[in-house]
């Protein structure tokens, strides 16, 4: 593809990809596809993209602000030349065949001219109508003309015809007109009609998300009868600093501060009368809500958290759950409340069974949060009809093959991702979104035009500084503590500052346009933003500078949110003073900044997949299908990895060997070079230009994918495993199930869960898949005549159809014993394990079981090559020993090293569908990376001033990335830094004894200017 295609007008638009739904999954899919060069039409039903994630307060377990990490993606999607955002629009028809669909989209009229609206909000202030704001989960109000949230993308106001006085009779009749009068741009026009457009699309991605179930029909929980009973989403809005209460936790009935809180899990989920599936995210998000609530409202002394099974299965979730218990003091009660009634003193009475005594009990609390089922998004059946795809009986879009293909719908060319196909958390949705992107991309063929990245604008560094300062309110987030206006006024008086202002949301789309205009108009040659963290927002502002013709390295940020409004929230005046200091320092640094130019390097448009398990195979297939060269390396003599240890698979009951065979056949049908029995011996190079050394050859590749899987832990020294032959692991038992042999009548097989997982020491996390494995095995054993008992701590059957499996196992007569968290099972015997002793927390008594076989469900550990590879590739490992992803929520497929990706169990234990989704997702990322024959290198790197270097080698020893290299020529020894490997971290510069090394963009001069000015007064 050439640059020409992207720039030459619009003769015939290329076949694009239709993405339906603008939540985090839809946005992620659109961005991957746009970067890979495909034309994307993103259709969103509401006036703004952002979806559910935009409504959330924090994301767990890091407690990052949800909108803060999402917003840059929204803006990126809006600005991406390959992405058309069609908001306030719906798909009304899809005809044609895969590769050649014609889609019709109805763009509903906003009655606001999209090109003229500047998002100033004057209209909304004069609108006399007040209706509940959907974005605030009904907790706050909006007018009939509105934007759902401050970061609305695009920031265009919309008149909601249902509630506007001018449409009271259904058709337009001028009654009010206040907004039109007030609009400074005369953008409001009640005569604008709906527009229908037709699009040529090659494939479709459905990312329509979920709704929260209304718990009103569950009458014993009294939602709707008492104002102080909230749903999870309502409470999330209440916790949000930009929400209806400004983040204050109050009793809605009287606005007073609650001192006690009850959380009720599984409201309408795991309940056959409503939704029998597990909603998958609630257990842990409620822990987060407790932690945040305690932070926002220290008056809350008691948190009563009612649950059935604590499903903390993701990375860091188990530890997060313990944090809730140990640090916030959440009282976790394994009991589902029977009813909520009026208690004494205006409190709510929660009745439940005390699990410790099996006696009825009750507690009076101020506030109750019901974590309600996630249900298929409203309109799913209609959209399914339009698209010609099926839905499951539980209401979600149906996957054609939930086991072997986590994104294909029942119609070819239409793919599902995120919560459209069932409840999911953010990282799983994001991984699936990329996966759907990879699959959809295969239908586009050559209709791709990646966005070319030319050289950066360069400015004269010697020009008199003209600094522009933009101080952010971040709604209430900063301005609730820091006087942002005063900071801006202060900045305006600083030397070199030509312009200073404050903005409600500096990161919002309209503000970017404004900044761009101001840079041009005021001829600014330095820009400082005082807002949040450069970690999430620097790329956005740099892009804005670039657009305005300013070199992006002439930009600096002061983090007045984390470092001022957050950490000094109780002393606003001092926080404001500190903000001024930070802005002053940033402005002085800005004066000393130098423009930098990025370097373009050619890349090898091929990928190397490490690991030939199901993830590696799928990843290689999906990369090859994009027409890229792929090499697959497997250290064992045969492909298949962990899947080779499995017999039959849940939920379809298909044979593992059949799935593997089909995937290997597909792999072999494609031009993929497979090397078995090989391992990487050394790696050199950088993104786009890796050199990989195998035993007998060297390979060049542009990207490396780690699909190295894991190995089951050997339960040495545990539960009689060393002593008794009949104590085996799940994988051993899977082999027993390999045939079709019956068990002896009444033969008792006892499964023990969490052997070596979820423990205080060592492996603290949950291994995520073991409950499902034991349920599947126990069910099969019972079907073949055995008796089965599962000894567990929580049954974590959270996966799609996992709850059905649990129910099937119960129904087939599998017994369940819930043991205490801190007490092991006592396995006794003589030569063979004969009896088990355990305290059953259900029956509240010690029980003795006779056993014929004991199956230990052991967690998955990182494969033995992980540590070595981590070191070789400079990929950090988590405390669990698995590779760390780039970002726990939004970057589950990438690593911190550009060009190196992760999928399957190399990241952490996963089941097959989740592994496959990640594998395909990585293929999309690789496709985007390799879409052009070059990459641009980060220019902010370190360089050696040779005249000062004494070749001591300190930098060579300490660099994490192997960038410095000792060299020698006729004049002597010296060090040279490989720009392509250098991350610009500055460690070498700080250690260099002679100050020979300079970290560009963080030079001593620049840093010292900040320190000097700080201590000047």
């Amino acid at each position, binding site marked *: 593809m050439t640059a020409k295609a992207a720039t030459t007008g619009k003769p015939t638009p290329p076949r694009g990809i239709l993405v339906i739904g603008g939540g985090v999954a839809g946005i992620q899919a659109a961005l991957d596809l746009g970067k890979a060069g495909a034309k994307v039409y993103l259709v969103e039903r509401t006036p703004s993209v952002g979806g559910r994630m935009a409504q959330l307060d924090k994301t767990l377990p890091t407690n990052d602000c949800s909108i803060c990490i999402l917003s840059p993606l929204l803006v990126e999607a809006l600005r991406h030349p390959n992405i058309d955002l069609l908001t306030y629009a719906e798909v009304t028809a899809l005809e044609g065949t895969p590769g050649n669909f014609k889609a019709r989209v109805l763009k509903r009229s906003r009655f606001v001219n999209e090109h003229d609206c500047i998002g100033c909000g004057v209209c909304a202030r004069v609108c006399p109508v007040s209706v509940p704001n959907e974005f605030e989960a009904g907790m706050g109000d909006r007018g009939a003309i509105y934007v759902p949230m401050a970061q609305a993308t695009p920031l265009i106001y919309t008149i909601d015809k249902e509630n506007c006085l001018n449409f009271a009779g259904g058709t337009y009749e001028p009654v009010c007109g206040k907004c039109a009068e007030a609009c400074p741009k005369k953008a409001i026009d009640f005569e604008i009609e709906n527009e229908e457009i037709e699009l040529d699309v090659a494939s479709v991605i459905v990312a329509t998300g979920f709704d929260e179930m209304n718990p*009103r*029909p569950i*009458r*014993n929980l009294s939602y*709707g*009868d008492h104002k102080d009973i909230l749903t999870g989403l309502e409470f999330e809005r209440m916790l949000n600093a930009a929400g209806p209460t400004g983040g204050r936790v109050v009793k809605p009935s009287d606005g007073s501060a609650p001192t006690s809180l009850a959380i009720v899990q*599984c409201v309408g989920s*795991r*309940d*056959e*009368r409503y939704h029998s599936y597990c909603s998958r995210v609630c257990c842990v998000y409620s822990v987060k809500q407790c932690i945040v609530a305690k932070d926002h409202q220290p008056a809350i002394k008691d948190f009563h958290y009612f649950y*059935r*099974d604590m499903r903390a299965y993701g990375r860091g979730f188990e530890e997060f759950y313990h944090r809730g218990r140990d640090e916030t003091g959440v009282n976790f009660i*394994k*009991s*589902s*409340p*029977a*009813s909520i*009634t*009026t208690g004494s003193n205006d409190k709510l009475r929660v*009745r*439940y*069974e005390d*699990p410790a005594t*099996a*006696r*009825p*009990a009750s507690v009076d609390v101020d506030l109750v949060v019901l974590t309600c089922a996630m249900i298929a998004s409203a309109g799913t059946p209609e959209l399914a009809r339009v698209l010609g795809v099926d839905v499951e009986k539980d209401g979600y879009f149906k996957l054609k093959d939930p086991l072997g293909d986590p994104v294909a719908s029942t119609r070819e060319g239409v793919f599902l991702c995120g919560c459209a196909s069932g409840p999911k958390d953010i990282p799983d949705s994001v991984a699936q979104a990329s996966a759907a992107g990879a699959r959809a991309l295969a239908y586009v063929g050559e209709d791709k035009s990646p966005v070319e990245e030319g050289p950066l604008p360069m400015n004269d560094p010697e020009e008199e500084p003209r600094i522009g300062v933009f101080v952010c309110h971040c709604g209430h987030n900063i301005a609730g503590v820091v006087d942002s206006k005063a900071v801006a006024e202060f900045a305006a008086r600083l030397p070199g500052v030509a312009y200073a202002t404050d903005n409600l949301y500096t990161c919002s789309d309209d503000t970017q346009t404004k900044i761009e205009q101001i840079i041009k108009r005021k001829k600014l040659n330095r820009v400082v933003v005082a807002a949040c963290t450069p970690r999430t927002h620097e790329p956005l502002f740099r892009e804005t500078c670039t657009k305005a013709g300013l070199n992006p390295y002439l930009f600096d940020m002061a983090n007045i949110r984390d470092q001022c409004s957050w950490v000094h929230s109780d002393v606003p005046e001092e926080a404001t003073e500190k903000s001024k200091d930070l802005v002053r320092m940033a402005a002085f640094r800005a004066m000393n900044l130098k423009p930098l130019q990025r370097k373009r390097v050619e890349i090898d448009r091929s990928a190397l997949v490490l690991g030939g398990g199901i993830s590696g195979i799928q990843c290689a297939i999906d990369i090859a299908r994009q027409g890229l060269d792929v090499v697959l390396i497997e250290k064992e003599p045969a492909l298949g990895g962990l899947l080779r240890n499995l017999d039959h698979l849940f939920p379809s009951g298909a044979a593992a060997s059949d799935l593997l065979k089909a995937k290997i056949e597909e792999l072999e049908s494609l031009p993929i070079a497979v090397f078995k029995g090989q391992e990487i011996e050394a790696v050199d190079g950088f993104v786009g230009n890796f050199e990989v050394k195998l035993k007998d050859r060297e390979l060049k590749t542009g990207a490396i994918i780690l699909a190295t899987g894991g190995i089951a832990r050997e339960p040495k020294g545990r539960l009689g495993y060393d002593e008794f032959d009949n104590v085996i692991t799940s994988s051993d038992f899977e082999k027993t199930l390999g045939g079709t042999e019956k068990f002896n009548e009444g033969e008792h097989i006892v499964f023990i869960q969490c052997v070596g997982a979820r423990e205080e020491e060592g492996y603290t996390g949950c291994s995520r898949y073991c409950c499902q494995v034991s349920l599947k095995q126990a069910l099969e054993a019972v079907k073949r005549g055995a008796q089965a008992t599962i000894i567990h701590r929580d*049954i974590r059957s959270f996966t799609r159809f996992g709850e059905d499996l*649990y*129910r099937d196992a*119960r*129904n*087939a*007569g599998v*017994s*369940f*014993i*819930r043991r205490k968290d801190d007490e092991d099972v006592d396995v006794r015997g003589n030569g063979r394990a004969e009896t088990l002793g355990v305290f*059953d927390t*259900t*029956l*509240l008594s010690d*029980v003795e079981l006779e056993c014929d076989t004991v199956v230990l469900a052991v967690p998955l550990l990182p494969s033995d090559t992980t540590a070595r590879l981590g070191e070789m590739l400079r990929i950090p490992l988590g405390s669990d020993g698995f590779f760390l992803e780039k970002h726990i929520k939004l970057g589950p497929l990438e690593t911190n090293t550009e060009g190196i990706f992760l999928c399957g169990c190399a990241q952490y234990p996963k089941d097959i569908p989740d592994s496959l989704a990640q594998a395909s997702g990585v293929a999309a990322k690789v496709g985007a990376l390799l879409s052009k024959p070059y990459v641009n290198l980060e220019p902010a790197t370190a360089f050696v001033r040779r005249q000062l270097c004494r070749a001591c080698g300190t930098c060579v020893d300490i660099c994490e990335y192997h960038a410095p290299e000792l060299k020698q020529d006729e004049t002597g020894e010296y060090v040279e830094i490989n720009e392509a490997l250098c991350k610009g971290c500055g460690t070498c510069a700080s250690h260099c004894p002679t100050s020979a090394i300079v970290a560009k963009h963080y030079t001593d001069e620049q840093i010292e200017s900040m320190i000097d000015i700080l201590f000047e007064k």
Partner: protein
Amino acid sequence: MEEARSKDEARAAEVASLIKDTRAYLCIDCSKCTGSCPIGKAGSVYSPRLLVQHLVLDGRDPSETEVWRCLTCGLCRERCPSDVDFPRFISRLRATALIDGNLPQTTHGGTFQELMRIQANERLRQNKMDWLPEWVNARGADDLDGSTEDVYFVGCAPYFDVVFADFDLDLKGTHEAALELLKATGLNPVVLRDERCCGHDALWSGDVELFRKLAGRNLEMFKAAGVKRLFVSCPEGYHTFAHEYPAHLGELGFEVINTVKYLADNPPPGFDMEGDTNTGTRPKAGGVVEADGAGDGGAVTCGAAADASTRPEEVTYHDSCRMGRFSGIYDEPRKMLAMTRGVTLKEMEFTRAQAPCCGSNLWINCDSLSKKMQMELLEEARKTGAGVMLTACDKCRIHLACALMQNGHVSDGLKTDNILRFLYRKGVRKT
């Protein structure tokens, strides 16, 4: 010896099948039942969860008292996320308890149990219908010719009136009202003088054999009469005929109709949905209760215009277990009240499927806990400010009257009434 073994085997088979039939295996140990149980609420301990888990996990039966303690009110089942049928679970265990010689503590000297057994006698002829309105065609067992298509089933009310004469409840009046109301819709149902006890109490007490005998006698008689439609007002009787007879004895060959439901579908003259010019507190279109049946605790104004000078009478309605949770009849009584002139329904906090238990059932195990539940239910009714608490179940009325009477007098003027009696008085007789 052999006999003992086969007895054990039969028992084990019964336990296995009742676990399966009542979905006890599917209990996910969530505890909702225990927290919901009215016995626990009244201050004692009763954990359906534990009883289920014990039987499933270690085969331990409920204790001698536990097996009889359950009121079979079904609130636990209503809230159970796995739909475990605990009332049936316990009643089937009662059958095995009876075999073991573990008998319940009967109330009223066992009078009602005796009465049930007597009614199973083939040659029994009864004289319990002498109060019927004159127009009613009442036929004896020896006078059946297969031509009586619409039959009205009276049930135990005449006997109860004798035993509980002190309470002055006029339970026969329920059936008199029912017959008059049905007549007003244009029907002319026949009453069978020798109808037997429906067997409800025997069944839920675990005496399946007696239940089958009684059911057999009734069905024989219905067949001889040529019944096409059987009208039943008693919620227990209705549920037993409509659901338990087919479940135990197969297809009935005739329709079982709940009187209130029939009246709601075929309102007699004097009941209509027109106009809401009533002086009630909150007019609602047509006076129909919310479509989702949420019953939001507010007042529902009745439809037909009342005499402008009279304030509407405020009533509350108690959903009895067999009428509500077991038969799903919630909207129809409310619809009838909405169609009654000069009446305002004031709902209690917990209604419909969430309604509390009246505290006693099957004429067994009545004690201070029962009384506490009754007093709490009466208190909930009083909170609404209504003067009368209506219900479809006359057994509820007996238990509540007992709780009130033992206080010596009806302290605050709250009365109970059967909804049919009330409707007849308000809508047709206009006294």
